[in-house]
């Protein structure tokens, strides 16, 4: 993985010093709340309901064991011994005191971490595929480009006061595991007809109040032009994006108002002026960055192991976990192992400091000292020898990290909701709990198979509900919490936005309503057909009919009309 050199370290250290002084001036009354707000947000710090929330960047989801240990230490020293992994591969602390944040950041800087641009109207942490570098369907490893983008966008003098936040994701694989098309800029590494690798550029995706799937404005961009093209897009957005209404300020709104064709023309014209500037990436520069992400030394005899097959045959528990949580690796004899942060008793995405330390140890013992954060709020050990799977599973089980539910119903994406977030209209963690209680039969979950539930406690859509196979949006009507369900969303390469099922559902009926929806699926599915495919084939009507049928088992009368 990428390691800081003296320059990276100096920039992060200087940002800590700058923020320390900004915090001091705010506390001394020299900076007003309005003046301080964008400065602290650009350093990931929110002031809200219970205490500040600090979001720490995990660039493209990659962590070393040492970094994870520091995240655990920070959780103990400045917080309440746990933290929350977010849908953008970051980590959030919910209780640090403003006065202590500069010290917290100084601690993070000792392990090459920071909170730069994890919030605010600037270019946010670039996200990517958690299978980068190990996936068989990969055209090229996206991580070197992520790091190039990270450096270019860090403390960018022109693009730190954009109309609104700006998110970039990069995927190098045929299957999109990074929700690329719902980002302001989504980049796919693709091959052109001649076999050269470059970028397909998609812009204007985003969730929130007005969800959009992005539009391709350039099917193939040569690698050397990556930064100049990004800069052209950002400049057009910075100059012409709306600043009069924060709900209409994202790139997606500008794109929609201008029309994709005109937007693309403007970008093209701007790009022609800067494409041969200092932003051009020379091949040697790209190679140099790629050398930070080389293949590790894998054991040549890893595939010779027979113990794994034996354990699968002997233990149903292990076999279940293996089927669900262990994924292929492009090197024979190796696997990628999901650590599920979706234990039924825990808020989705949360981990304790004890778990983090244990995971850091396991990563060193079994996975080349590296941990990855996935955008669906789990962790991944990406380089595990198959011979190590059984002993690894035994430890994970003790730590509550072996719930065999990856990709299943209870592997929900969930925002912090009303319990922690000042923006939320409704709880999301209690609904996750309700769903976990209702669907506690693992055999049933396996039978239902691949299904993504995504849940947000307000229309800002941090829980990506628009792109859940089943999306759940918390709304507040006259002081009561209701939940708006959508069906058929997807964030993969065939991205789609979910459609509304009908009137919002009363809080206590959410899990029962999901049970009704699943019943329709079970009745109507063909052979191995997953939920999303059945929905696409039969449409909304049968689901709607079941859920809102007069006199049906669940109390639809509680639904608002």
């Amino acid at each position, binding site marked *: 993985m990428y390691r800081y*050199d003296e*320059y990276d370290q*100096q*920039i992060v250290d*200087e*940002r800590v010093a*700058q923020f320390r002084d*900004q915090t001091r001036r705010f506390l001394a009354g020299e*900076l007003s709340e309005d*003046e301080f707000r*964008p*400065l602290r947000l650009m350093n990931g710090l929110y002031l809200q309901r219970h205490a500040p929330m600090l979001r720490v960047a995990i660039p493209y989801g990659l962590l070393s064991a040492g970094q994870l240990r520091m995240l655990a230490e920070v959780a103990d020293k400045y917080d309440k011994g746990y933290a929350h992994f977010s849908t953008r591969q970051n980590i959030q602390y919910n209780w640090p005191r403003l006065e202590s944040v500069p010290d917290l950041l100084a601690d993070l800087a000792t392990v090459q971490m920071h909170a730069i641009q994890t919030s605010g*109207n600037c270019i946010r942490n670039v996200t990517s595929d958690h299978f980068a570098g190990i996936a068989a369907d990969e055209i090229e490893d996206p991580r070197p480009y992520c790091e*190039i983008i990270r*450096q*270019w966008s*860090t*403390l*960018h*003098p*022109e*693009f*730190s*006061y*954009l*109309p609104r936040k700006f998110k970039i994701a990069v995927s190098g694989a045929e299957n999109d595991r990074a929700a690329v098309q719902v980002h302001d800029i989504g980049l796919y590494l693709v091959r052109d007809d001649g076999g050269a690798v470059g970028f397909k550029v998609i812009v204007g995706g985003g969730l929130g109040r007005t969800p959009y799937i992005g539009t391709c404005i350039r099917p193939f961009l040569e690698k050397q032009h990556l930064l100049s093209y990004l800069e052209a897009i950002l*400049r057009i957005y*910075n*100059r012409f994006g709306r*600043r009069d209404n924060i709900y209409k300020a994202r790139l997606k709104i500008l794109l929609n108002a201008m029309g994709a064709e005109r937007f693309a023309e403007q970008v093209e014209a701007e790009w022609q*002026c800067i494409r041969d*500037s*200092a*932003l*051009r*990436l*020379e091949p040697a*520069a790209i190679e*140099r*960055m790629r050398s930070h992400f080389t293949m590790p030394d894998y054991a040549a005899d890893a595939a010779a192991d027979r113990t794994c097959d034996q354990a699968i045959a002997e233990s149903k528990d292990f076999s279940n976990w293996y089927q669900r949580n262990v994924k292929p690796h492009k090197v024979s004899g190796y696997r990628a192992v999901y650590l599920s942060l979706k234990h039924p008793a825990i808020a989705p995405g949360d981990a304790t400091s004890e778990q983090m330390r244990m995971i850091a140890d396991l990563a060193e013992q079994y996975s080349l000292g590296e941990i990855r954060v996935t955008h669906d709020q789990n962790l991944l050990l990406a380089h595990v020898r198959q011979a190590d799977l059984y002993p690894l599973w035994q430890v994970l089980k003790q730590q509550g990290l072996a719930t065999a539910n990856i990709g299943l119903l209870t592997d929900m994406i969930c925002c912090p909701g009303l319990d922690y977030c000042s923006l939320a209209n409704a709880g999301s963690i209690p609904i996750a709990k309700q769903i976990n209680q209702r669907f506690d039969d693992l055999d049933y979950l396996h039978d239902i198979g691949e299904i993504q539930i995504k849940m947000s406690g307000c229309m800002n859509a941090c829980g990506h509900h628009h792109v859940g196979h089943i999306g759940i949006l918390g709304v507040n009507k006259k002081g009561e919490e209701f939940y708006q369900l959508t069906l058929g969303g997807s964030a993969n390469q065939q991205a789609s936005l979910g459609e509304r099922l009908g009137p919002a559902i009363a809080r206590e009926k959410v899990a029962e309503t999901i049970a009704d929806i699943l019943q329709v699926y079970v009745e109507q599915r063909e052979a191995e057909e997953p939920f999303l495919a059945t929905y696409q084939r039969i449409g909304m009507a049968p689901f709607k009919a079941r859920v809102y049928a007069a006199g049906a088992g669940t109390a639809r009368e509680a639904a608002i009309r």
Partner: protein
Amino acid sequence: MEDQWQLIAGDGHDQRLPATDIIVPFAWWREQPAVLEEHPGKVAVYLNPDDEVALLAPLLADFPMIALNFPQFKDGRVYSQARMLRERYHYKGELRAVGEVLRDQLFYMQRCGFDAFQISADKDSRGAISGLDDFSLAYQAAADDSLPVYRAGRLL
């Protein structure tokens, strides 16, 4: 630091101009340059964030200085205007930041090509100037430096 320039706010109409050097809105200057021709002092212009920089480009030599106005410190359009003036239109004269000009944005302003800063009147301007030194290096090329650290033999 005090200097002789006085900023004329609003659209300039019906205003009695002070007999000093003045900075007037670009839109007003375009509308009625005749009034300004009689002005005893020097005349410079300032752009608002929604003014098109390209319109000023052919006239750069006409002004002793150009100012860009930050109606709010959060208005990021001004940074693009500054870079375009410097990098696209090769403006070499004084480029002054006016309006809500605060310490914590000075580093970025300098990087985008500003070389004069009229710090907001209610702030300690001497203290604010130290904001120019918040960082001693930068990742990306900008108006102040087309050879940032990583181009000088590191990344690019």
